[in-house]
């Protein structure tokens, strides 16, 4: 069984092993299992070992931070100075980032080690990691199935023990859904908790970066480093970052948890619903008070999301034009040709679909009907949550309507893919924090339970998840990997 982040951190501090040893172990596992799983786009072994050596020196001097020497993987959406950053797209296949994302800087300051950049849906657009220029990622629990997306590579890497922790980004569920489908723990913080500088943008008002790990305890450690004010990001919050690892031992006695009736209606797989019920029972046993609540505008969240996200992304992706970086088509005839072929050849089909819809939604005559309307519905969705939080501390539900589906099962119908996000999307619209933790299996595939908190209550979420994880062992289970 591979170790978690906290365990590695303690082990390094106690001198049980060195960062170089741990890093070499993970690099060996990656070499062995990545070819079949395709979790990584880039494996930065030399860099990792150099960082590990530096970390060991720091540990020896007694100047280490909690994450010094801990090997991690980063979603290939975070700019990493001098290292390829592709967003799983042909248009950035040749892009060596000229600077570090703030999140990466935070990890570097702490002395963490970077194993490589993980696979994802192209430009974070997808829920299955089937939209990658570098091919699909396989779910380590059943390689014929998807790992979820868009942070499929990071989730699968943690599930398969190729990294004890990894970063992801979540715009409509892209941390929580793959965490659920791969049986790991992941958290999307409050909008503005983690800096977006250097995190290549999909939908600016929805994107947030967050960690994957094997437990809430591990996630707490990672989130503490990732979070914090950044003056380079106007949307980043100045609120102080709590000491998350110190906030997770409080138990859930008296904690009020709301179950939205809309999340347990038709569309939810029966077996999955049963698993969630069992998990809820565990929380009851721990002293939590469960009650029904209603989030009436849940049904609107998908169309609302797709207008906002696609409109914003259509604009965010305009900078990929073959002029200053990235893919440029061969022998452009004129400027129009340069733009159209560089972008047409560089972007995959799903990305192009989304750019087209977003462009349409913003075009003359449609702004009021689409974008403006969606921003109004967003407020209504947020108000639903605020009403609910007047009577409960946390909201609970399934992360996904079904477990991991087969690779290729939904690629012919984009809309059926979009419906996977039904439980996760509304949080992004409201800007609330949410996490997913493993609570069982259906047909051999993991089931994730989602916890939703009020603004900046990541500590509350991590605490509840940790309490659950202290009396259950779903999070300790690992898939059998065949080479």
């Amino acid at each position: 069984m591979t170790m978690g982040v906290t365990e590695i951190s303690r082990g390094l501090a106690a001198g049980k092993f060195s960062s170089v040893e741990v890093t070499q172990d993970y690099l060996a596992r990656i070499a062995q299992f990545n070819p079949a799983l395709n979790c990584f786009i880039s494996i930065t072994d030399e860099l990792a070992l150099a960082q590990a050596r530096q970390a060991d020196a720091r540990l020896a001097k007694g100047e280490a931070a909690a994450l010094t020497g801990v090997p991690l993987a980063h979603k290939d959406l975070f700019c990493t100075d001098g290292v390829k950053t592709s967003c799983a797209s042909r248009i950035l296949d040749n892009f060596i980032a000229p600077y570090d994302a703030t999140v990466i800087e935070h990890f570097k300051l702490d002395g963490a080690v970077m194993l490589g950049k993980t696979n994802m849906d192209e430009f974070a657009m997808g829920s299955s990691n089937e939209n990658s220029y570098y091919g699909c990622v396989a779910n380590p629990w059943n390689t014929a199935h998807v790992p979820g997306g868009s942070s499929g590579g990071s989730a699968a890497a943690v599930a398969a023990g190729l990294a004890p922790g990894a970063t992801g980004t979540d715009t409509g569920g892209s941390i929580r859904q793959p965490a659920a489908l791969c049986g790991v723990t992941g958290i999307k913080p409050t909008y503005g908790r983690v800096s977006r500088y250097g995190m290549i943008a999909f939908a600016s008002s929805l994107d947030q970066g967050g960690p994957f790990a094997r437990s809430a305890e591990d996630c707490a450690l990672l989130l503490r480093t990732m979070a914090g004010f950044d003056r380079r990001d106007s949307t980043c919050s100045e609120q102080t970052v709590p000491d998350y690892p110190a906030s997770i031992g409080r138990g859930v006695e008296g904690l009020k948890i709301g179950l939205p009736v809309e999340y347990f209606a038709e569309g939810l797989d029966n077996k999955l619903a049963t698993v969630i019920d069992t998990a809820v029972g565990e929380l009851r046993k721990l002293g939590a008070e469960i009650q029904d609540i209603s989030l009436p505008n849940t049904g609107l969240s998908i169309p609302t999301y797709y207008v906002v996200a696609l409109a914003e992304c259509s604009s965010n992706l305009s900078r990929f034009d073959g002029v200053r970086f990235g893919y440029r088509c061969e022998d452009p005839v004129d400027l129009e040709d340069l733009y159209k072929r560089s972008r047409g050849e560089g972007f995959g089909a799903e990305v192009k679909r989304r750019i087209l819809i977003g462009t349409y939604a913003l075009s003359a005559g449609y702004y009021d009907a689409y974008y403006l309307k969606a921003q109004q519905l967003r407020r209504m969705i947020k108000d639903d949550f605020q009403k609910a939080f007047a009577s409960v501390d946390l909201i609970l539900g399934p992360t996904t309507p079904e477990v991991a589906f087969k690779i290729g099962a939904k690629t012919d119908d984009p809309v059926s893919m979009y419906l996977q996000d039904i439980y996760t999307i509304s949080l992004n619209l409201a800007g609330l924090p949410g996490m997913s933790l493993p609570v069982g299996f259906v047909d051999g595939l993991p089931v994730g339970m989602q916890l939703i908190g009020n603004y900046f209550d990541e500590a509350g979420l991590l605490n509840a998840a940790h309490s659950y994880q202290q009396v259950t062992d779903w999070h300790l289970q690992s898939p059998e990997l065949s080479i």
Partner: protein
Amino acid sequence: MSDWESVIGLEVHAQLATVSKIFSGASTAFGAAPNTQACAVDLGMPGVLPVLNREAVTMAIRFGVAIDAEIDHHSVFARKNYFYPDLPKGYQISQFELPIVGKGHIFISPSEGVTKEVGITRAHLEEDAGKSIHDQFPEQSGIDLNRAGTPLLEIVSEPDMRSAKEAVAYARKIHSLVRYLEICDGNMQEGSFRCDANVSVRRKGDQKLGTRAELKNINSFRFLERAINHEIERQIALIEDGGRVVQETRLYDSERDETRSMRSKEEANDYRYFPDPDLLPVIISDEDIARIRAALPELPEQKKQRYIDALGLSDYNAELLTGNRDTAIYFETALAAAPQLSAQLANWILGDLTGALNKTGIEVTSAPIAPAMLAQLVTRITDNTISGKIAKEVFEAMWQGEGSADEIIAARGLKQITDSGAIETLIDEVIAANPEQVAQFRAGKEKVLGFFVGQIMQQSQGKANPGQVNAILREKLKP
């Protein structure tokens, strides 16, 4: 021609004089080597984000206060989406529905004694694009993004102007104002102050506006006037010939003195404006506005009024002196050295000094005669040390760098003769030497006085005080 009316509105883009860009910390200094002042944010690198420059906001508010405009307490940045190589992100961050400055107005003086109010629809903040050059590489254009991200204040006038003259007066007024406010250096050659004109024509009495053409690429007030006049003629001729004016952008070609249609950059012009999600609403409080208002420098209107009321200058002179902030500063500095001589200083500055500046082709800030020095010269006239005529000679010498007025007067022995005894003696000599002219004068020929004055001036090398000469001469010539 006379039953046609032209309707003109101007859009001015003023580059704000901040040291860093509106959304990044790169420098805005002019003239750097290509792409050496374009940081990751200006280049539109993947993952970068904008953060708003406080000074740009302050400068915009200053302008709004100066034109008596509504300042929007809640203002929003919007993305204007289009593709062009000098626009790295594929969108320009601008303002659309909620600009920082709303409706205001200024007063212009298109000709002497005439005042007209011109409305300003709005002024908003936006980022400048980079520059393209087309003559350096054979089949390619070169893109320099140093300018990308420089803050611009786009000032949009109401279509209140009815002639090229009015348009130029407006442009000059705005130019003067932004320099007074120290928010823009107004350097049209360097592109920090750009005027586009929207021109249409209609028959007099028509209420409906004609189709307008937008004129661009005008970088001097002279060209502005020519371009507008040319465009008015073109449109009238077109319509009289049975044609219709097309709404389009036309570039002014100063060499050919004509406007020509620009090949459309973005035919559809569908900018798909929406609020920029990377930026948050800008909240401005009444305290902010009050603080900025209190810190405003004296504005041209106030200055002009003060010159009229407190210094007794004429409307015309006051207008001219305050039209250019540097001229006003020169005047006030000189006045500090000679506080009683406002009218005389005004005349000397607007007359001889301006004449010399124009002839030499230099700005008042580079004048070889310092304000205090001019004040001294003018003082020497009023204290009778020299005559007005001699003063012009001294001015010339000062301009050539020969020294101060006192130094030149001493060196050249130019002191006026004011001793009445000496003057009397001179006059007596001249009268004695010219008995014919004496007789003529006494017979009634007034004009002959000039002859005597001329003679006396000649004998005295121009140094005799003309006033005294006149008075004593008349006395002595009495029959």
